[in-house]
């Protein structure tokens, strides 16, 4: 899939704490087509460990996850 026609969804998880970010990510990914991308920002540092763990459990792919000051930003691709 070329990056131009890739479906990207944005999600704001700022201010939310465990277990809600995982719930919202799971719901958002369900609405994406397979191969679609999710871009999200969060403030809960727990997301740094939890989103990759969720992706491993569900068979999806974290493209990038990083801290930017107080924010955690990540990109996730739906594979399943």
């Amino acid at each position, binding site marked *: 899939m070329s990056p131009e026609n890739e479906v990207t969804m944005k999600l704001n998880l700022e201010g939310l704490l*465990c277990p809600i970010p995982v719930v919202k990510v799971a719901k958002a990914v369900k609405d994406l087509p397979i191969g679609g991308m999710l871009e999200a920002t969060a403030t809960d540092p727990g997301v740094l460990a939890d989103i990759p763990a969720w992706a491993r459990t569900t068979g999806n792919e974290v493209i990038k996850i990083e801290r930017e000051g107080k924010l955690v930003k990540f990109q996730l691709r739906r594979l399943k």
Partner: protein
Amino acid sequence: MEASTDGVTIVMLSGDMDKAIAAFSIAIGAAASGKEANMFFTFWGVKAIQKGNLTGNSFFGKMMGIMNRGGIDRIGPSRFNFWGLGRWMFNQMMKMHKVTPLAELRQTAIDLGVKLYPCQMSMEVMEIGKEDFIGEALPACGVATMLEMAYRSKVTLFI
């Protein structure tokens, strides 16, 4: 029932707020990862799926209904409850840090398809009827049903 073999089964014995938060969070995490999640509520745990009305038929049953009144908003923390003051304080702190309140966690679990089973034996002993439970509670069951869920699950927790 599904043929899933990697779900989570939680036996919820405790009637404490902190433990209920943990139990619902785990069930939610599993359900959000596409896993089967079952919660079996027994003894003090049944409070978390009660509507909150007074219960009991006999004298002891009614006493129990007053002393151990059910309902998700009446559940206090396992430590520092101080007859409800601790619960209030905890709720304030949770609000301050934007932690999801217990009632909302339970609703999230329900929305994600977490199954809530009351224990029949606890209902008999504590004189709690099925009409005292929230509408989402499934029909009551016993140890064999709980074990059947546990055998099917990869993770079973007793909280």
